[in-house]
Structure formats: C-alpha cells, structure tokens
C-alpha cells in the first residue's frame, strides 16, 4: 500500500481533509495506529497539475486505497462529534483565524475546481491552502510546516481532487503544532473582527464565476486539558453559535435584499450550508427555480402562478372533469397517514390542502401518477412555506398550530399554489423514480451498491455473505429521499442542501398557461438539455465551463444528471457507511432491522451537516469515476 513517500510543494484539500480526520480520530480515540491509516499510496509520483489528463483513472485507484481508511476514520469523527467533543461546525468566516486568511477565496476556488476536474489549475496548488493552520499564529507558515512534516506522502495525490472539505481549524489534540490557549482564543476574536470587515464581501470575493456551496467547517477547539476547558469551550461555543447565526442571516440579507437580480450562484453556495428559518421559504422558492431571480418580476409571477393553480383546481374539480377515483381514493387514505406523528398534519385544513395538491399533481402527471412516498415529499415545502404566514417568533410552532386559525382562505390557496409548483419542480428532477417500474430508484439502488463496493468493500462483502440486498433497505431511502429516516427538522435542513443541488435546467413544460391545463405534463417527456440562464448576470456553472473546457457537451450532460438524484446516492452511501463498523458484525436479520430503524432520532442539524459533507466529499472524489460504472 505504501509505495513511496512523495514530497511536493502543493498541499491540497484532500490532504487537509485526511488530516482533519486524522486529528479528530487521534484525539478521540488516541489511536496508535496512525501510520497504517494515514500513509496512503500514491500511485503516481508526479500526479501534479500537469497530469490532470490521466487523473480520472488514477483518482479511482488511489482513492480506493485511501478510502478504506477514510471510511473508518469517518466513524471516528462521527463518534467524536456525538460525544462531548468540541469538534463542531462553525460558520466559515467565524473560524477564519487570520485576517489575511484566504479561506473564503479558497473555498470559492475549491468550488470552482469542483467543476474543473479536467482543467489545469496550477495556481490551485499554492501554499495558501492551509486549512489546518488557523491557529492565529502565522497560519501559513505553521500549516505549511505542519503538512510537510507529516503528510508529504499525500501531496502527490492531492491535486487531482479539488473539492471543499470540512475544515478542522485550530489543530487538535493530536496536532503536533500545539498553540497556546491564548492564541486559540485570539483567533476566535480576530475571526469575528475579520468577519465584520470581510463578511459582506465574502460572497463576491471570488475571482471566478463558479461558486459552489461551501462546506460547513469543522472547528476543533484547542485545549490541552479537555476537562478543565470544557466550560470555557461551551461558553465560547454558544457565543460562536449565536454569532454564526447572526452572520448567516446577514449574509442572506446581503444576497436577497435590495437586489434587482438575485445572484443565484451565491445563493446556492451559501444555502448549501443551511438557510436561516426566516429566509427559508423565499430561498427555497428561488433555489428550486420557482421564484424568478429578477425581483421586479416576482410579484407578477407569483400572481400568475397562483392563479394558474387555482384555475387548475377549478378545472379539475369541475363537472366536465371526471374524477380519477382510484387516485383520489389512494391519496385520501394516505393523507391521514402522512407524518402521523406531527400534529400539523392531523388538522383537517392541512389534510385538505395536501389532498388537493397531490391530486392535482397526480392527474397532471399521468405517467407516474400518485405514488406512495411522494406524499412525504410535499410536506417539507408545505411546512416551510407555512412559516411565511407566522410571525417570526412563532415559526417554531408551525408544527402544532392549526393554519386555519391564522390564515385566510386566500392565503391558504396561495400557500397551496406555491407548494404545488415547488413540489412539481422537485419531482421534475426525479421523475424516473415514480414512473412505472420505478427505474430511477432501481438505478440509484444499483449505484449505491456499486459505490459502497468501492468505498467500503468490507461492508459490501459482508452484505453479500449475509445475502443482504441493497434494495431491501435502500428502496425506501430513494423513494422518500431519506425522509423516513430522519425527523422533519433535520429533513428540512437537509433540503436546504438538496435544493441547492437541484439542477438549473428549466423544462419547457414548466410554464403551463391556463390554456394548456388540459394537456397533462407527462414526466417522461425529455428534459430540455440546455441550462437556463435566467439573467445575464447569472452564469450557470456549466455554461461558464463551456467557455473554458473543450469537453463541454460531455460535461454538461454529466452535470445535468449529477443533480439531486446523484447527490442523494452519495448521501445514502455516507449514511450507510456511517454504520459500517456496527453492520459488519450483524447478520441478515440484524442488518435489515437496524437499517429500517436507524438510530437517528436524536440527530441534530450538525449530524446532518456532517453527513452531507461526507456525501459531498464522496461525490467529489467519485464523480468522474462514476460515469464508468454508475
């Protein structure tokens, strides 16, 4: 496995990623098995920027080796964050230790590179990629040394993977660079200061037009004596949390407020890391491509779509339109069974709304029709948009208040319309999941198994030995987008990211004028291949790519597929591998039972964010490889 050690000036994100995991692992378990875990093979000595051309194959090979270890490492990370560890997410800027820290730009560049896997990017390997160096004490130098000392053998592989990663700042218990306590504190305060200066410009700090979601960063507090510092850490954490929330809100304000054209890319990027509750309804509508980014058009657009929905209802429930009894009946019996644990969905008014939305959608999409599970998918939209009608202080009560008590009929109709259209937009992207035979789901399940086979061969082989078939547990994961596996709150957080991952295409069928109401939109009709460029300011990643890379066509088709469904497979993979250590000791029955009821009841948003980050990393690493076997 350890062919040779490599030295290179270029450090990379993967390096620091591995390092992050290594640190967290070392600190959590004080494991003594470092070398075997971290010394990964580098199959090519000079796999530096110049060798991008051959990178895909190489990526796969090296990463196979690497990821066996990574998967295990993740488990460690998971536990660490579950226990009383200081390992946690903070907003990117918060953890930026030094004023001159390049992180915002860096992250942008990382995102940028995510779409440029085949491009040459020599500048990307500059020494500024020092994610672990935020100790407040000359981070660049420190971290450079840090990398060199420990991970030279990594450098050679690195430049082929360019993606954002969870970043562990402030070293860690196991870090060889042990800054003093005061320096760590200083870093925190300076980061806050710096944010106020840098903050607003962060989103525009990009030299490139490619922006992609930043990952939440892992922050590990520096301390020599965990027990003694615990209280202090917690206080600091609370303060940081608050700060980070405030900052996030203002960042969203910056993007949304007083703009004629909302920068969709900025929005996508920032939303990937979670959307503040007060912004969520409008941001979701923007992300899914419902609300126009041109704010001047929004009002009239909403009016039109809401009217369209109402006309659609009127038409559907009029006498000239015969009721599709089986569909109506199926929806009728499923509505009371939708989120039965949440009071909101027991209110008659809510049930009636959902029934109308689902029925109208079903008869307009006869190729799939109503399929159990999509009743789940409509609820995050409904619930989120409902918060628009509540005063901010009561947003958290949305699941217990009866909407009919605080909404007019007109408002209910608007809410239904918005929910209907966004739901429609979402399902457009995953149509194949619900048409006859559910090919989309079968494909995803297959992809998942192939992915796990490569990422975690032990688990895969164990499943084979125990005759556990992926479809036996993963069918539901795909059919309901993991909604059954998590509580609603975490699902909604997850959707912030998912909706940021939705592709930008606009289908021709989207704008149904009231005249076309009789023409059902069949989900099987081919999607329009080109990306939307809603405004001239907005440039979709692919469109921008096209001006630079030769293989535009290929990329664009890949990009198009690699939206929600593909990302979801990676999330499922990360989710499954999370339990790998436990699963390999289980027999068939235990495995299925466990996976049907995974212990996620107490999952926080942080847990979900960790999962999404892991998925993002897998996707970044396997994206190109997957085209060969997915």
């Amino acid at each position, binding site marked *: 496995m350890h062919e040779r050690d490599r030295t290179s000036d270029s450090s990379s994100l993967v390096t620091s990623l591995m390092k992050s995991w290594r640190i967290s692992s070392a600190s959590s378990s004080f494991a003594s098995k470092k070398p075997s875990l971290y010394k990964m093979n580098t199959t090519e000595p000079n796999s530096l920027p110049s060798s991008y051309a051959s990178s895909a194959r190489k990526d796969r090979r090296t990463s196979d080796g690497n990821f066996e270890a990574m998967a295990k490492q993740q488990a460690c990370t998971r536990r660490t964050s579950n226990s009383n560890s200081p390992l946690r997410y903070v907003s990117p800027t918060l953890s930026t230790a030094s004023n001159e820290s390049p992180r915002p730009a860096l992250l942008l560049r990382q995102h940028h590179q995510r779409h440029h896997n085949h491009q040459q990017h020599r500048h990307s390997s500059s020494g500024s990629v020092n994610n672990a160096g935020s100790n407040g004490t000359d981070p660049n130098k420190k971290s450079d040394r840090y990398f060199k000392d420990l991970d030279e053998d990594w450098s050679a592989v690195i430049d082929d993977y360019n993606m954002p990663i969870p970043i562990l700042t402030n070293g860690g218990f196991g870090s060889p660079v042990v800054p003093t306590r005061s320096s760590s504190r200083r870093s925190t305060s300076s980061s806050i200061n710096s944010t106020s200066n840098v903050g607003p410009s962060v989103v525009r700090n990009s030299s490139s037009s490619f922006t992609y979601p930043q990952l939440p960063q892992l922050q590990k507090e520096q301390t020599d004596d965990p027990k003694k510092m615990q209280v202090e850490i917690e206080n600091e954490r609370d303060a940081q949390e608050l700060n980070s929330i405030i900052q996030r809100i203002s960042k969203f304000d910056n993007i949304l407020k007083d703009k004629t054209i909302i920068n969709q890319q900025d929005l996508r990027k920032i939303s990937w890391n979670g959307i503040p509750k007060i912004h969520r309804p409008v941001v979701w509508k923007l992300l899914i491509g419902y609300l126009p980014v041109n704010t001047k058009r929004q009002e009239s657009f909403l009016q039109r779509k809401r009217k369209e929905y109402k006309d659609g209802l009127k038409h559907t429930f009029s006498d000239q339109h015969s009721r599709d009894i089986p569909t109506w009946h*199926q929806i009728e*019996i*499923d509505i*009371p*069974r*939708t*989120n*039965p644990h949440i009071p909101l969905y027991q209110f008659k008014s809510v049930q009636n709304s959902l029934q109308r939305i689902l029925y109208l959608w079903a008869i307009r999409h006869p190729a799939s*029709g109503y*399929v*159990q*599970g999509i*009743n*789940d998918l409509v609820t995050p939209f409904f619930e989120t948009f409902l918060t628009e009608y509540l005063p901010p202080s009561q947003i958290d009560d949305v699941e217990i208040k009866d909407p009919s008590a605080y909404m007019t009929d007109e408002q209910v109709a608007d809410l239904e319309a918005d929910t209907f259209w966004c739901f429609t937009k979402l399902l457009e992207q995953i149509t194949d999941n*619900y048409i*006859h*035979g*559910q090919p989309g789901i079968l494909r995803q399940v297959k992809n998942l198994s192939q992915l796990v086979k490569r990422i975690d061969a032990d688990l895969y082989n164990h499943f084979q030995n125990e005759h556990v*078939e992926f*479809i*036996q547990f993963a*069918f*539901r994961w795909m*059919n*309901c987008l993991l909604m*059954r596996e998590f509580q609603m709150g975490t699902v909604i957080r997850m959707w912030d990211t998912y909706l940021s991952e939705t592709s930008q295409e606009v289908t021709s069928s989207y704008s149904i004028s009231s005249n076309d109401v009789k023409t059902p939109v069949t989900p099987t009709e081919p999607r329009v291949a080109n990306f939307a460029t809603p405004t001239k300011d907005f440039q979709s990643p692919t469109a921008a790519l096209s001006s630079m890379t030769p293989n535009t066509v290929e990329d664009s088709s890949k990009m198009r597929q690699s939206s929600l469904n593909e990302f979801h497979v990676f999330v499922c993979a990360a989710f499954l591998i999370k339990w790998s250590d436990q699963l390999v000791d*289980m*027999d068939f*029955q*235990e495995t*299925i*039972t466990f996976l*049907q009821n995974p212990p996620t009841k107490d999952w926080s948003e942080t847990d979900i964010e960790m999962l999404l980050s892991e998925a993002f990393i897998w996707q970044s690493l396997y994206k190109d490889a997957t085209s060969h076997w997915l």
Partner: protein
Amino acid sequence: MDTNTAGIPTLTIKLVLLGESAVGKSSIVLRFISNDFTESREPTIGAAFLTKRITRNDKAIKFEIWDTAGQERFAPLAPMYYRNAQAALVVFDITNEQSFRKAQNWVEELHEKLGDNIIIALVGNKMDLLTMQGEISNRAVNEDEIQNLCQQENLLYFEVSAKTGKNIQEVFQAVGEKIPFPTHNVGRTSEHDLTITDDQRIDLESTTVEGARETGGCNC
C-alpha cells in the same frame, strides 16, 4: 438472548404479506409482533422486515416476515419477497370489495409462480369495522365467494382485527402448524438472533380471543 427457545429445535418460516394498500398488513404484523396498534401508520414503502418467535408444542417457530407495500406501483417488487417464502398472508379489508379482488389476484399470482409450494392464508381484516344496521351489514365481501375461493385455491381463511387483536395470533399459529418440521431445518445460530420477540411479550394468552374461530369456515 432468547432463553426460551435457545437450544430447542427452531423452524424458520419465511412469510410474506400481500394485499392492497391500507388493508392493514403492517398493522397485522405490528399486532402480532408487539401486540400493539396505531390508528395511522405511514404507508409501507418497499417492504418491511420483521421477525418473531412463537412456540409450538416443545418446538420453536421463528417467523421471518416481509411486509410488502400495497400500492400497485410497488407490485413489481413483490416477487423478490415472495420468491423464497414458505407462507403468505394475503390480506384484504372485509369492508372493501375492491381489496378482495386484489387479494384474489395475489392468490392467483402466487399459485402461478410458486405452485403448491407455499401455504397461503387469506386474511380478512378490519372485523372491528363490521356493523349491523338491522339486517344489513357493511360487510362488502360475500362470504360464499370467500368460501369458494378458499376451497378452490386451498387457502386458510381467517377474519381478524388488527385493531382489537382478534385472531391475529391464531393466523400465525395456524400457518406455523401447516408447515412440517424438517429434521435438518434448525434455525440460525441463536447467537445472532436478534429476535424482536425477546422483550416484546408473545403472550398468547392475553390476545387469545374466544378460541381459534375460523369464521370463514373453510377448514382446509
């Protein structure tokens, strides 16, 4: 672990539940497994897997149950679950005629694909909903028709209520008795048997309802 059944011969029965959506398949299983009932359960997606041990004389029977989703769209998945099954519960709602038609289809499909290699119990659920208004019952399925089907297709027949628990244990008990105890078939090492049984009271007594009355009357 399962101290009750450890060391005694265990017969493992793979059982699949089929039937139209919302007839109460999952509720029947829940009642059987943990003697519980909830009014509104999320529709099953794909299939759910559950296990339960019961005793028959001095022997143990372990049910490995695949509770399938009822909606037509999921039907293509069903063969995966009934392929290796030794027993099937084909469930319908006795107040819903359509669900009985669907049950008939399932019985036909099972016999077509598996011949006589599967024990099939036809289960009419939701007895608790049966009400009499004078002479008129809201029973939607003709009893003669049920009886004909049972004789024709060689089915066990039970009318049950997952809500009240009526006849639920009896169905499984009867299915268990129909399947012979092969000498070589000893269940998997009890080491790894994470049977849900253990802490979830089989407690046959508590759920027994006035004998194992097979209301449909076809004692085949």
